[in-house]
């Protein structure tokens, strides 16, 4: 389980999320918006009897937002609250034996905040991201 990762794509970037923190993967139903909530909070969606706070990963990274309804989402549980992280696509759950290495290159502000390491899969580098940091959202630069 420790070495199992969920491989997903967010805004054309392949990322890995530790499978141990992921509760499930769902297709989001209708998303009720939350007026005046932080920009990365796309709204609320029902998952059976649970209510998910839907997070737009792109907004959390400071990128343009996407329509949340009908998206695939990675469900995580943080302090008793369920969040659905809307991603572009989900490939698979894979075992990667190599431990994560530190990110050696300079990333954009949004990515550098959520990335906690780098993994290699099928000869391609993946960003290992911490979903908790995505939930915390992207702080707008003061000047904007």
């Amino acid at each position: 389980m420790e070495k199992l990762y969920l491989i997903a794509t967010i805004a054309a970037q392949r990322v890995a999320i530790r499978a141990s923190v992921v509760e499930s993967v769902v297709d989001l139903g209708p998303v009720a918006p939350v007026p005046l909530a932080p920009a990365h909070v796309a709204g609320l969606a029902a998952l059976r009897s649970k209510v998910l706070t839907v997070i737009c990963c792109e907004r959390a990274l400071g990128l343009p937002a996407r329509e949340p309804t009908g998206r695939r989402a990675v469900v995580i549980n943080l302090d008793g609250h369920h969040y659905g992280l809307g991603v572009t696509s989900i490939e698979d759950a894979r075992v990667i034996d190599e431990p994560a290495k530190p990110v050696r290159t300079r990333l954009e502000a949004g990515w550098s905040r959520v990335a906690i390491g780098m993994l290699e899969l099928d000869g391609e580098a993946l960003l290992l991201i911490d979903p908790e940091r995505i939930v915390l959202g992207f702080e707008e630069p003061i000047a904007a």
Partner: protein
Amino acid sequence: MDDLLAEFLAETRETLDALSGEVIAWEAEPSDRGRLDAIFRFVHTVKGSCGFLDLPRFEQLSHAAENVLSDLRSGTRVADAGLVSAVLAIIDRIGELTEALEANEPLPDSDDTLLIAALSAEAAAPVTGAGPSALTTSHQPRAPTRSMGVPPELLDRVMSGVSDMVLARNELARRLREIGVEADVGGAFERLSSCVAEMRDSITRTRMQRIEKLFSALPRMVRDTAAELGKAVDLDIAGSDVELDREMIELIRDPLTHMVRNSIDHGIERPELRRARAKPLAGRLTVGARQSGNQIVIEIADDGNGIDEAKLVRKAIAAGVITAELAAALPPAARAALVFSPGLSTADQVTAISGRGVGMDVVKSNIERIGGSIELDNRPGLGLRATIRVPLTLTIIASLTVSAAGQSYAIPRAAIEEIVHASSAALRIDQLGDALVVTLRGRTLPLLHLEHVLATGRVPTVSGRTIVVVRAGAGLSYALCVQAVHDHEELVIKPASPAIMGVGLYGGMSLPDSGVPMLMLDAAGLAARAGIEAEESAAIAVAPAEEATAVETVSTLLFTDLSGARRGIRLGVVERLEDVAAEQIAFTAGRLRVAIDGRLLPLVGTVDRVEPGSLVKLLRLSDGVAEVAYPIGEVIDIVPLAPAVNVAGEAGPIAGVALVDGVQVELLDSFWLFSEAQTSAAPADARPLCAIADAEDRWSREILRPLLEAAGYRVAFGADPKQPADVIVADRDETVGAAAPVVRLRRELGTGPDGSVYRYDRAGLLAAIDARLKTRSA
């Protein structure tokens, strides 16, 4: 009473079970403070509860144990094995009595006095040798009562399972409607459907409970406690229908009981004292619960003595809780909070009710253990308000579903005063600047479009919409205009994630049968976002008898100036409108004056465009004493204006600008007008009398006198016993009777060492007279 007893017994048994480990550990390590505290809390709670349940044996036992434990806590006694076993024997005896009562058996006929005697300092020594088990009586388990402890997680799983079932039922119902089924299939589905609904209700009730369960025990307890103390107390309970987690109810029972008893014991004064303080003889105790945001707020307020903060601080210093330096630097609000320090009390006497200086620290730690908080609002001599807040884990709230910009929201039913359609004849809506107010039966309220507050859209008109009058707190009501009102529903509300609660507008979220999550609005949060403040004793509401005015307005006279500019002035200062001949106005002695009715009035404003021989319209303005004339062109109208205007940049005749029918109108500054024209405006006898000592001096008569009169003084010569002077002006060397302050004048320039004033120093002379007058009146 049976309910109370059963609850007490169940609680005591549970605590005993939980405590058994502590007791054994304490036995091994008598100096362990944490364990000592836990045991102390237990006996204290038992003592508190059994007093009003009329269980004298429990009370004697727990009171004795509490005394000893209190000594141990304060360090006046040291725990040794004998003492520990004596205390344990008491706890065991309490356990035995509890079991007997629960099983409805006669109480064991054992003698408690031996156990109690073993606690005393003298008895402690001989018991030591006997070992821990010497005094413990035989302990045979009895048949357990029928009650089950179910882990809350399991209940949660059952609940969410049932919710899933409801959603599946709804989905199935939709499909069945689409395909159209035969009547018998439909009937079977209906039966299933109602079973599911019933099941959901009952399973929800296993978790939820009305706070009434706690409150219903209060009247009896208050009555008995008050009677015991010889006090009279009126109890007021509000919000009994607030529902909260069963778990939470159990956890706040003790803190609530303690606070109520404390209020009666320490807060509310004896009737004699209340009479002396001109308070109603019966003390007033209010206990209320309400849901606010993601918290349940429980308030316990009394109109008693409050906490004597000075005394509390002294005790805290004496007990070593705080140093004198720290205490001196303590803000007032933090002083009352010292009452939560362990081992501290303001009560001089230990009573059976409370007053051991415990309780409050126990209360605080109990509340904090469940993630809550307690705050005190202490008004010495007037009363104490304790506010307990506990987190809202899950609650069922009777709600109203409304929609705005196509989205549904829930509003707690408790916050809603009434619902009116916007087209109702009972209401009137006025626009004030870019704000709206609605007047409903003489009550004026700010009107908010929900879409505007939530920034989800612009609403051009109220027509076709519905107005919900929301009361967000004391004096904080407003009208919320929504697209539509849908349903009254009992909604299961859960707290939303921190990012959503942090917005400050939502109290939680719910998943209604539609399967689309819905947010519950926080009435106070909406008011705060819209900038609505609580009204200060009817600042905005008008008397119902009055012609319904939107807000307090000022009747304003609109006119054109002689220059043609539109101006306005408060109608209240306008005495009358008068036509005078242009010749009656003249620029004399440094200012414009008009001669009317044989008097000269100062005239403010300009008369450049007045042609000789014509008539000039004058406004005669009065501040109650002085009069001023103001020339105008034509009167336009009298209109009500809001008192707040766009204030002029600098002081001058114009106070500011208001918008009347889309035209800018300058408003005259009455204050400036009168201050500008202030010379000799006061009527004669109100002016101070200035006596000139030398009546024969020509300079005094012909030069000084007119100066003084122009400056607004009455002038007399010499000393007149019938008219005592307010100030006397005399030559430097003159002798005068010192019946009034004297201003000395000298004839030569330069600084006078004797405080005299050069007689041609106009400003200095007038200032000196003014200063003397001030010292006289002071």
